[in-house]
């Protein structure tokens, strides 16, 4: 697929900013936390050892800082087709407000914060910044993640 020389117009940008996803809810399972910690190679006992976790500042098992990446299916439907087939992750910025514990029901909502276009090694690239807010079953915001997606 060939990449268009220029893609994004100011009108498209304005249409996209503020678009929000449907909420997606995931129940946090103890086994999932353990599999995630194993996959990232993190042996911290606060993820898998109840006795050790109890003595931590959290008082119970918690999820690793980037665990909420495993909330899948948060889809942003832009009012136009982002006509690039390839994707790269440009970076992420997490803010944490509450620990995430096994048994939590976390609801994620993403919102488009910015859209821009640049030319680089991979041709025309569209940068989409989204902010995902994660809320637990007590209506407390546990974390926000600002993420930059690169489409090229």
């Amino acid at each position, binding site marked *: 697929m060939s990449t268009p020389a220029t893609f994004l117009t100011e009108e498209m940008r304005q249409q996209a900013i503020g678009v929000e996803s449907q909420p997606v809810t995931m129940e946090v399972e103890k086994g999932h936390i353990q599999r995630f910690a194993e*996959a990232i190679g993190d042996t911290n006992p606060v993820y898998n050892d109840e006795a050790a976790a109890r003595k931590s500042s959290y008082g119970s098992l918690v999820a690793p800082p980037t665990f909420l990446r495993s909330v899948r299916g948060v889809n942003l439907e832009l009012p136009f087709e982002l006509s690039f087939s390839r994707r790269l*992750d440009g970076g992420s910025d997490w803010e944490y407000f509450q620990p995430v514990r096994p048994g939590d029901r976390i609801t994620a909502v993403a919102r488009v914060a910015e859209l821009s276009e640049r030319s680089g090694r*991979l041709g025309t690239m569209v940068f989409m910044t989204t902010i995902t807010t994660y809320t637990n079953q007590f209506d407390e915001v546990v974390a926000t993640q600002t993420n930059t997606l690169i489409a090229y």
Partner: protein
Amino acid sequence: MAEQVYWEDVTEGMELPSLVKEPTTRQLVQYAGASGDFYEIHYDKDFAIGNQLDGPILHGALKSAFLGQLVTDWIGPQGALKRLQCQYRGMDAPGNAITAKGAVTRKYEEDGQRLVDCSIWLENAEGQNTTPGNATVILPSRSG
């Protein structure tokens, strides 16, 4: 596990104990399963090459997980992570060791919390910083 670090013990410029990671394609598949991110550029060589890459690359989010571990290992069970930010500037491939590093940039008190800002990054075998970032942590105090 290292001893608990306290806010009073921290000085600006102090380095965090570095963390060496040796990701393999197997780990990327494991991470794909655990995170649900099955984008093929992370484990399918032909697909990655078809996407103008030299081969499979690490998930950006796995790299931020390595930086998260660097920081949470350092702050210990009584510390808390407040912010974790990084940019995936350079690509990292499985089979190559990367080292997570960090240094304290600021120590301060705000809203009754004892905070420390750190510069954090991943360094590849050539010594290049592929993933620059920053973290803010809350540390316990010796005075309780």
